């Protein structure tokens, strides 16, 4: 009888505890966030660096991240249409923000920006990019730039110096070809839009960011002479074999690995490739280096073309906008920058104005820290350019990706490419699809 009583008491206690736990879970306000593809170790990084500390610091909130894979963008657009999307809206880039804001799917963030101090903490240009009709709707998760990775060990062995002008760059690339080294570590087998990295490079470093700005704001057409020169030069590099024989067969990572092995000399690519540096360079006893891409005559050196891969917004239908804003606020903190970039480089370069208070782990490559600090300083000083995937509207951007292949493969001329680019851009712009272009 006594044991029965004990059992009943234990069951009663368990029921009370369960009820309390359930009530506590019910009191917590959920915050949902759909994220794109992430490797298992990076999913773990997000859990331990963001989700767990956030939930611990906000006992009344319950943040959860749902990894939706490569098709996140399509799923998100459909969910937003039906008003059933997540609280934290993670878009594929600023060009998607304009359409979503226009459709009333996003909450203006101006009040949060003022209240939580985002206006003081973030680089102003990135606040401008996220605006639509004068109101702030999105903040960039990370910003990136294009430059030149190279194998310093290989350069030292051959007595090569990193080039600063296009003429030096071409002389160097020809020297590499003569030695049987592929000048560009490049491949688009897994990501066809890699094509536009090279278009962005020549538009900014050969035509110059001032001309790109004028074209983006409709002051000059894309058929103007500086762009003809830029695309002609890119085509000349392709025809000269700078991209190597396997551009359409190699994935971006396979191509990048070739710089470390010395099969390729340089990788004109984005800062996201810092994530691949520790994977390939130490194993090949090679020292990595990164510099700005060389500039043509009359264009300052270096020009860092700015890219924003994805953005944060809050859904207009969110039941917990304050919670979503608190999550975004945490992402834009010095601590999160330091912790996340110590564990996962190249993906979380949040646009903080001042990185001097950020502490990174000792294991982080000094080259990465220096590059990011230099980039933030260049952007602050207004020395930046424009990547196609951030500043061109969607149809124009997809045309750049496919059209440049047609130029390379001799199906169309530079003039035809630029004419179609200009026509598509004008059409996109007339339909209000062009993203905001911050004043220079």
């Amino acid at each position: 009888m006594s044991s029965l009583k004990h059992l009943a008491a234990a069951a009663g206690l368990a029921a009370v505890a369960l009820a309390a736990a359930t009530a506590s879970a019910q009191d917590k306000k959920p915050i949902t966030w759909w994220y794109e593809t992430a490797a298992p170790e990076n999913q773990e990084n997000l859990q331990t660096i963001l989700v767990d500390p956030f939930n611990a610091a906000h006992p009344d909130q319950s943040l959860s991240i749902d990894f939706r894979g490569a098709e996140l963008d399509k799923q998100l657009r459909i969910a937003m249409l039906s008003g059933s999307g997540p609280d934290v809206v993670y878009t594929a880039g600023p060009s998607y923000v304009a359409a979503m804001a226009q459709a009333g799917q996003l909450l203006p963030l101006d009040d949060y920006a003022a209240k939580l101090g985002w206006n003081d903490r973030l680089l102003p240009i990135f606040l401008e990019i996220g605006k639509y009709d004068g109101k702030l709707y999105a903040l960039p998760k990370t910003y990136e730039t294009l430059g030149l990775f190279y194998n310093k060990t290989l350069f030292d062995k051959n007595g090569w110096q990193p080039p600063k002008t296009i003429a030096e760059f071409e002389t160097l690339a020809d020297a590499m070809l003569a030695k049987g080294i592929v000048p560009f570590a490049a491949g688009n087998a897994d990501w066809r839009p890699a094509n536009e990295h090279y278009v962005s490079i020549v538009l900014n470093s050969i035509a110059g960011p001032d001309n790109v700005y004028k074209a983006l704001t409709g002051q000059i057409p894309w058929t103007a002479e500086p762009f003809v020169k830029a695309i002609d030069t890119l085509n000349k590099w392709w025809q000269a074999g700078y991209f190597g024989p396997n551009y359409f067969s190699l994935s971006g990572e396979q191509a990048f690995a070739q710089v470390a092995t010395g099969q390729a000399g340089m990788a004109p690519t984005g800062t996201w490739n810092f994530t691949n540096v520790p994977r390939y360079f130490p194993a090949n006893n090679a020292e990595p280096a990164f510099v700005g891409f060389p500039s043509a005559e009359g264009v300052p050196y270096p020009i860092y073309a700015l890219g924003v891969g994805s953005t944060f917004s809050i859904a207009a239908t969110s039941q917990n906008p304050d919670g979503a804003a608190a999550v975004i606020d945490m992402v834009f903190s010095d601590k999160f920058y330091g912790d996340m970039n110590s564990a996962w480089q190249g993906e979380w370069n949040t646009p903080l104005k001042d990185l001097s208070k950020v502490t990174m782990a000792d294991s982080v490559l000094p080259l990465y820290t220096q590059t990011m600090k230099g980039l933030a300083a260049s952007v602050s000083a207004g020395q930046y350019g424009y990547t196609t995937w951030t500043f061109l509207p969607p149809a124009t951007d997809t045309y750049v990706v496919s059209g440049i292949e047609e130029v390379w493969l001799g199906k169309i001329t530079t003039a035809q490419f630029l004419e179609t680019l200009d026509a598509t851009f004008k059409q996109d712009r007339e339909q209000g699809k062009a993203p905001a272009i911050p004043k220079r």
Partner: protein
Amino acid sequence: MWLYLVPTLAINLMVILVPALLTVALAFFRWDGISTPVFIGLGNFSALLNDGVFWTALQNNLIWTAIFLVVPIAMGLLAAAMLLVARRGSTFFQVIYFLPVIIATAITARVWQGMIYSPVTGVFGLLQKTGLPLTNPLSQPSRALFGVATVDLWHWWGFLCVIFFAALRQVPQEQIEAARLEGAKFFQMMRYVLLPAIRPTITLMMIMTVIWSFLVFDFVYILTQGGPAFSSEVLSTLAYRKAFYDLNVGQAAAAALVISLFGLVATFFYIRLQSKEGAP
């Protein structure tokens, strides 16, 4: 009695008819998939007709259809007839031939891309090192479509083989025995006995091949995304790009209607064939 039809009718209405009608309607609107659609009449169709890539995609679909009407059907018929003649081990070979069909297309595509065609990690790369002048077909504009078609052929022909073998097994044994007694050789047996006996199956498979060929998407999208320089673009990848990258859902719907048009023609022939067979 009519109540029995309600469940399937309801599913068809909700899952097929409503989205189909919406697609037809969207073909006459300009819509980015997010904001309010704007009616533009035949604007999407005229834009498509003036787009060179649309004609390349249509041509590629026609080439694809021609390839799939000949190669896998011929391979399937030949292998099925062989299985019928040499019964020993036929179950084993059926399993082997059918295996590629049950592997997910994404896996098949990645295996071919990374382990066969790749000049770095694939068989082609190994053969290149031995001096054979092999290049990845997916990287050549003149061969990209055929490179993708080869992968789909490998994946697909076993299915046809098994279907044809099942049909051939229904051919009355007496006819085959009689032909044998008359001294018919293998190809005579095929020409005068087996092929005429399974003609309805072959015709049905050919009609379905036309429909499926205009719907082809997965292998093209995974292996080349329609490139290089649109050389392997087909109508479905064009529609996908328009809808999800260009945010031009109206033109994507117009392209989808063109795909359906070819499907409808094939379906018309299929229904006519069915009714002929069903007629007393």
